[in-house]
Every structure is written in structure tokens, then in C-alpha cells.
């Protein structure tokens, strides 16, 4: 068990090296990815240029939300690539081979690949976050920095959990379920803006079922020092990253359930 990080490092090394083989192409794709994701912020900026404010939220405040969401998503995206490929593994029957190795299936699936070129999204997310911090003149107190970090990690856990759930569906059906794309990409897009602007049903979906709210919206109340709605407990902004972690743990349970199903019904 203790050599797992070392082994993960070996897998990553292999994945990176094989991506680096095509260095020029890699650079080009990374730049391209940066542009494609960065253009979203351009859109946000353009909308604020026209409308001025969004239901009481200013551009720098929304930039903070945007940056946190993008960074969380980018981290999760980079480490989740193995689960994207998982469907093929089941279809080809190669998942059996993973069961024949003395390691957990989750580790082996996750370690298959890490996608570096998605670093473009990470970079522009960090840039937005940094600009927001400057524009808002946020004092970098230890609690604030810790909360931002925790929220980002919690958000990454949430998105990673969604990918795991999507991959788990492959144990039952060969079709990849659209619903998860909606939750992952739709959720990430929705998280770029404050949750208050959405209609009730979407707010409730993203707070209680798939807690996208924990990615940035809930922590933002503490980070920005905004006055809380009366029904929101004082501790909630600080504890919200745990929601992402809880979601991930639940997703891992579902995966285990999927593996058990696979092993009792065969492929």
C-alpha cells in the first residue's frame, strides 16, 4: 500500500513521456487548449462590459468564481483521463487483466493516463483567479488562502467523482450516458457564475444532489465576506469543500459496486 504513490508516479512518468514524444504537437495542443478555454472568460468580460453587474455580483467577484471552477475542473480533468478510457477497457475485455494484477482497480484505471495538455485550462483559470484577487484587493489571510485551496481541492474531488460515476455506468451499459456529460460540463459552466442566478430546480440540483455549489459559490461567501442569506448557516461556507469530498467517496463506493457486479456477471 505504501508504494502506491511511487507506482502512480511511474505510471505518470510513462504517460508524460509518451505524450512528450510528439513535443511540437503537444505544445500546439496546449496552446490551443489555453485559447479555447480562455475564450470563455473573454465572453464573461464582454458581458460585464455591456451589462455592468450580475445580480449584485461584480466582474472581479465572478472572475473569482470562474477561476476557482476552472482550476478545479482542470485538475480533475487531468487525472481522470483513465476513467474516460475505461469504457473501452470493458468493451475490449482488457479490464480482466486489471483484475489479475495485485492492485486495486481504481488505482489502475486512474493511473493509466494523465493528460498534460489540459494544463491550458488550468493556466487561464489561475490567471483569472489571480486577477480577481488583485482587483478585489483581497487580503491574503491564512484562513482565506486555506479556504480557497480547500475549495479547489473539494471541487476537483467533485468533478473527479462525476467522472468515476460516468465510468461506473460502463459496467452496465455500452452506451455512455449523456447525463454525466451534462453534469460535468454543464456543471462546470454553471459554476462560472453565481448560483443565485439560476432557477430553483437547478439551484437545488447543484446544491443537494451534485453539489457544484461547493466548488466556489458557497466558499465565496466566506472568501469575499459577502452577507449570507438568512437560511445559510455560518459554518457552511467553511465546511463546503467537504461536500465535494463526500461526493467522491460516494462515487468510489458506486465503483466498487460496479466491480462486484462485473465479477458476478462476467463481461
Amino acid at each position: 500500500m505504501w508504494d502506491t504513490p511511487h507506482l502512480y508516479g511511474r505510471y505518470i512518468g510513462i504517460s508524460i513521456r509518451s505524450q512528450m514524444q510528439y513535443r511540437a504537437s503537444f505544445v500546439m495542443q496546449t496552446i490551443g487548449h489555453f485559447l479555447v478555454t480562455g475564450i470563455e472568460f473573454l465572453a464573461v468580460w464582454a458581458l460585464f462590459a455591456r451589462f455592468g453587474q450580475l445580480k449584485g455580483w461584480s466582474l472581479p467577484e465572478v472572475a473569482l468564481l470562474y477561476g476557482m471552477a476552472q482550476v478545479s475542473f482542470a485538475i480533475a480533468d487531468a487525472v481522470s483521463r483513465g476513467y474516460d478510457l475505461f469504457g473501452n477497457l470493458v468493451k475490449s475485455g482488457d479490464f480482466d487483466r486489471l483484475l489479475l494484477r495485485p492492485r486495486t482497480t481504481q488505482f489502475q484505471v486512474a493511473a493509466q493516463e494523465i493528460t498534460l495538455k489540459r494544463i491550458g485550462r488550468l493556466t487561464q483559470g489561475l490567471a483569472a483567479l489571480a486577477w480577481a484577487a488583485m482587483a478585489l484587493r483581497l487580503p491574503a489571510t491564512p484562513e482565506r488562502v486555506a479556504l480557497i485551496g480547500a475549495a479547489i481541492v473539494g471541487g476537483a474531488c467533485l468533478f473527479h467523482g462525476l467522472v468515476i460515476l460516468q465510468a461506473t455506468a460502463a459496467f452496465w451499459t455500452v452506451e455512455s450516458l449523456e447525463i454525466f456529460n451534462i453534469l460535468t460540463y454543464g456543471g462546470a459552466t454553471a459554476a462560472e457564475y453565481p448560483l443565485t442566478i439560476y432557477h430553483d430546480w437547478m439551484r437545488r440540483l447543484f446544491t443537494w444532489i451534485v453539489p457544484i455549489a461547493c466548488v466556489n459559490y458557497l466558499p465565496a461567501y466566506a472568501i469575499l465576506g459577502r452577507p449570507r442569506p438568512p437560511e445559510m448557516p455560518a459554518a457552511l461556507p467553511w465546511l463546503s469543500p467537504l461536500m465535494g469530498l463526500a461526493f467522491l467517496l460516494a462515487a468510489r463506493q458506486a465503483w466498487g459496486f460496479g466491480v462486484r457486479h462485473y465479477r458476478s456477471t462476467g463481461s
Partner: protein
Amino acid sequence: MTPYFAILRARFAAVLQYRAAAFAGFGTQLAFGLVLIYVYEAFYRSSRGPQPMALGEVVTYIWLGQALLSLLPWDTEPDVRALIRDGGVAYELLRPVDLYALWYVRTVAWRLARAALRSTPLVIVAMVFFQMRPPASLAAGLAWAAATAGAVALACAMTSLYHVSMLWTVAGEGVTTISATLVLFLSGMMIPLPLLPAWVQRITAALPFRGLVDLPFRLYIGSIPTERLAGILLEQAGWTLAFVALGRWLLNRGLRRVAVQGG
């Protein structure tokens, strides 16, 4: 003409078969559309003054964009990518047809088939539940249809250019990704062009991309009068010819680099 029409029909039918993959976009586009609708709604409620477009128009514009996303030249056909990567291009040259025309035609079929499959359910749902409106008038609808045909021709000319540029691997990727970004933004797919600052709109007027999305959509919602259709079609056609010419010229140069792999 006949071989190209045959290819068009065959590819169209083939893509229609991949129903699962085609429908796969439906949920995602619906979700994006919804998020965008709510965002615009909130923005509109947050400011007082008049805007170049009414909220209702923006909503319809957004839904049109989500429904017709497949027509936008921001991605390339996977089959063609595989063809180039695996060296099958050489076999294409053995066919007694013009290679550029061949690729152009199959791209048209691919885009149209995907769009047909994805847009229909989305439009139905959006119109019934999410405030998407029908065309402003019959004339507007017809004008929109004509402009969309022009947009498809233009989009496929651009896509064919990407395909050709993939003969130079790295450069091809660069062209495609950078162009995808520009296309998404400058065509109006991300934000309706009338909502952008005036200086940006001056730039987009000089570029080909607005003919892909903004111009046809505004004919639909009626904010561009149908009398301007001829001018729009001319603009689209001009850019289409330019891309076709560039594509053909590059293809000739690129074919000299093609190596046959395998064996």
C-alpha cells in the same frame, strides 16, 4: 456531378446510422443552452437601459446556436483525421474524382447528418419548454434557410481547409485549434455579436465568421431585414470561394508530402 452526389448521399446515410453518437450531443447542448439562458436572463434583469437585442431574441439566438452547433467549423471529421494519420490518403488519390471536391462533399454530408439528428429534438424541446420562438415571419424563415445553406457551404470550405492543413501535422493542429477559438467567438456562438462592443463588431464585419452564425440567426429573429439577404449570400459566397481556392492550392502542395504507410 453524379459521383459527388452519390458520395454525398452515401455519407449522409452512413452518419445517420450512428444514432447513439449523434444523439449524444443532445443533453449537453440542452444543458449549455439552459445555463446560458439563465445567465442572460440575470444579466438583463441587472441593468436598466435599452439593449441592442431584446432578451427574447437572445434566447432564440442561443437555442439556434446550440441546435446548429454541428454546422460550425470548429471540429474536424475523425474519419479524415484517421485517413491522413494512417496514410490512407494515397488510396483516395486512386479514385477518379477530384480529391478536394471529394473531401468537401463528404464534409457536407457529415455536418448535415449530425446537425439533422441533433437539432431536431433540441429545437422541439426548446420551443415547447424553453421560450425558443419560431422565425419572425415566413419571409424571415425562408431567408434564414437560404443563409444557412450559405453558412453550410462556407463552414465546409473552412473545414476542408483544416483537413488539408492536417497533411502538415503540427501546423494543422495549430490551425485547427486556434481557428476553433476564433470561430466560436467571432461568429457569435458565444455571445450574440450585437451585444459585443462596437469596435469588436467592426472587426467581425470584416471577417468571414459572422456569416456562419450571426447573420443567418438575425435573419431568423427578424433583426436583419430580409432585403439584406442578397448581400449576405454574396458575402458568404465570397469567403467560401476564397477558402476553396486556398484549400485547393494547399492540397496540391500537401499531396507531394504524402507518404504511403503500412505494408
